């Protein structure tokens, strides 16, 4: 009935078999390193790892078609806008200017700008698969337990799990409420202008909030009646036991992270600069 953009895709694979905590550590260490580093060598290595991880997970591209289309569109848009707003950032950053050709007005294409934008795009190309990989190979039920394992208080991490639990219910409320509003002449369909629709959509908000609030009341009562918040810690039914593989992967992540940072900061900044000989 609904198109799912992001969801768990159950499979048998090495990546799936890792515990949620391990996958969260992979995800965090890679995204931090990828965000901090502008060193092309480090980024290329991360790209290699992220592609490797992806193929290990046995997730097919067709299964994440919507997200990958979005990614490509996003990267292209981003590259174009970056160039339009700041075509001279590359030369400034790398301290040299190698003109390739003139485009129009103040716009020149320089090797440095091209290299800079290549690095920026690379970051996205690395980051997205890792995020998708994390989401589509981690059972949502394990999500909360992995957050709590890295030190997030369980009251906070459990709310992630609750949100996942109630998204379908809220979607259903939303569609029922909008249908009943539409039946009272509140236009929400394509036959009215965008702003009219936007204004009318606001009318769905109050009933949606009210129904959600009464839901929350009931859930919190039900949770209290079953001892939620009784102890400082809690255990998790869906938590996977850590295996040797988990520890090896975590160790590997830490090594990559540390070495990556050292290489990145070698020249006193986070750039890899091929232009200054």
């Amino acid at each position, binding site marked *: 009935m609904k198109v799912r953009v992001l969801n768990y895709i159950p499979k048998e694979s090495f990546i799936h078999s890792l515990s949620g905590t391990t996958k969260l550590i992979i995800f965090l260490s890679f995204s931090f390193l990828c965000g901090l580093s502008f060193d092309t060598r480090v980024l290329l290595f991360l790209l290699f790892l992220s592609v490797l991880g992806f193929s290990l997970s046995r997730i097919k591209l067709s299964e994440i078609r919507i997200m990958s289309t979005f990614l490509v569109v996003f990267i292209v848009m981003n590259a174009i806008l970056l160039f339009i707003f700041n075509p001279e950032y590359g030369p400034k950053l790398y301290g040299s200017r190698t003109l390739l050709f003139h485009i129009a007005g103040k716009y020149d294409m320089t090797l440095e700008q091209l290299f800079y934008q290549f690095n920026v795009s690379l970051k996205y190309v690395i980051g997205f698969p890792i995020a998708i990989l994390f989401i589509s190979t981690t059972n949502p039920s394990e999500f909360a337990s992995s957050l709590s394992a890295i030190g997030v208080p369980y009251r906070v991490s459990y709310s992630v799990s609750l949100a996942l639990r109630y998204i379908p219910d809220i979607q259903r409320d939303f569609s029922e409420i909008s249908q009943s509003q539409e039946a009272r002449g509140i236009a929400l369909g394509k036959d009215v202008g965008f702003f009219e629709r936007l204004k009318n959509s606001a009318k769905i908000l109050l009933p949606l909030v009210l129904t959600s609030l009464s839901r929350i009341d009931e859930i919190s009562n039900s949770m209290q009646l079953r001892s939620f918040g*009784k102890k400082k810690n809690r255990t998790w039914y869906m938590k996977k036991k850590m295996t040797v593989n988990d520890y090896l992967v975590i160790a590997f992540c830490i090594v990559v992270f540390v070495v990556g940072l050292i290489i990145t900061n070698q020249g006193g900044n986070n750039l890899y600069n091929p232009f200054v000989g």
Partner: protein
Amino acid sequence: MEPIISFRNFSFQYNAQKNPTLKDINLDIYPGEKVLICGASGSGKSTLGNCINGLIPFSFDGKISGKLTVDGIETKNSSIFELSTRVGTVLQDPDGQFVGLTVAEDIAFALENDCVENETMKRQTLLSASKVNIENRMNNAPQDLSGGQKQRVSMAGVLVDDVKILLFDEPLANLDPATGKSAIELIEKIKNETGTTVIIIEHRIEDVLWERVDRIILMDDGRIVSDSSPEKLLRSSLLKEYGIREPLYITQLKYAGVDLNNVEGIDSIRTIRLSEADKEKVRNWYARQDREDKTNVNDYLLEVENVDFKYDESEQILFDINTKIKKGEMLAIVGKNGAGKSTLCKVICGFERNYNGKIIFDHEDVTDKSIRARARNIGYVMQNPNQMISQSMIFDEVALGLKNTGLSEEEIRERVYDVLKICGLYSFRNWPISALSFGQKKRVTIASILVMGPQIIILDEPTAGQDFRHYTDIMDFLDELNREGKTIIMVTHDMHLMLEYTDRSLVFADGKLEADKSGSAVLCDPELVDLADLKETSLFNIANMTGIDDPVDFVDCFIAYEKKERSHES
């Protein structure tokens, strides 16, 4: 024997309220007892339950005086956590209390919070699941379960704790009749297997009494007005006085002049034994009834032709539905959850578009018309008023649908006032909606549909969760609208509503329209009752017991008699 629950001069007042909700309660409940607590809405019965499980005072603030001990501990010096290991509570809405992403996680929830180690937890969860026969659904998400299954999960979720007391807050409210019956049977089974004390808070007495109950506590206005065996209570007239519906067979026997003091096993239709003399009385009563002929209108207002429906890539929900609805009819759609009742209504209103077949309104094909175009003729009232109300003032809410119709302010005001008068809401017209009770909100939503001037009004579960008094209020109001010419279609689980207020019922099972006949004929047809997860009426049993050969007519006579009685009273 020491009581396991003991109220001593106990009163409770919510901080937000002027008067105490519970007044001077003295009540002892003993280990192993099965107690039914009943009362109209606002009688304090749910509040009493919340005192036992500790939601009061630990979640709802208020002032307690007197004393309440549960399993030897005084509740106000305890904590909700300490109490929750002794009292297991199954709340009203099986969906709202499902916390986990899967069945297994939901059952294990209390164990997780208690830091139970993983291996033990899995074993206990499975054990608990098998007590309620849900063990082969461990990895299902809540969306994949029926209402009855969700309720079983809730039961398993409190059984993991080895509680001594099980508290059920309106366990029947959200279930279809057959599922409600099996819920009552399951509660009995658990009680017998585990020896727990069971407390059921419910106003549908006849359904709870399907299985034996030791005691019934009747509440009104925060006080206990009766505390006796079911037999004694049923023999009295207290239930009626305090706005609770008597079991139908009891009412019938009273009408027939049977002296209930001499009847054995009257607490359940399964155990009742009538003497020959009493049977004769019932037959005599039946012989005295006269029947009214109903006037027949033959103009069809709504025709549904060959409607098939399925959501994309999922199982078919409606199979070749054909039905015709006459002008001025009052009609019930019944059947188990997921049988296609609501879907048919959504198709009729145009909410769901991808169907095959035709919808004809007043001889005009509206199959391709939009929701809004159809809404002028067919109004839809949702079950939960909070899902419909989008304005904060009553007037604005009712006027909302007229805003875009090109009427002048004057005309709008006039029409809204007219409708508010019909709905008995005129004196509240400048009130904020938040000040209204649930039943009044329901009226506002009906008013907001009525103002559009539809000829057909479709209502989803108009009386769900309402006690007898509010049920009668709403239904008499709908009856009045019907007499003024509106055609009314109701989706309902309430067998009595179908019997008492409708001319005809459409019975659905698994997406097919299985029967189209009067409510009394439906409920006197055991095969159909079984097929559509309905519940036989106890009047049918009385007819059989007394050898009346036309049970359908017997039921019709009873309903007609009851209506007359009620109009005498008011």
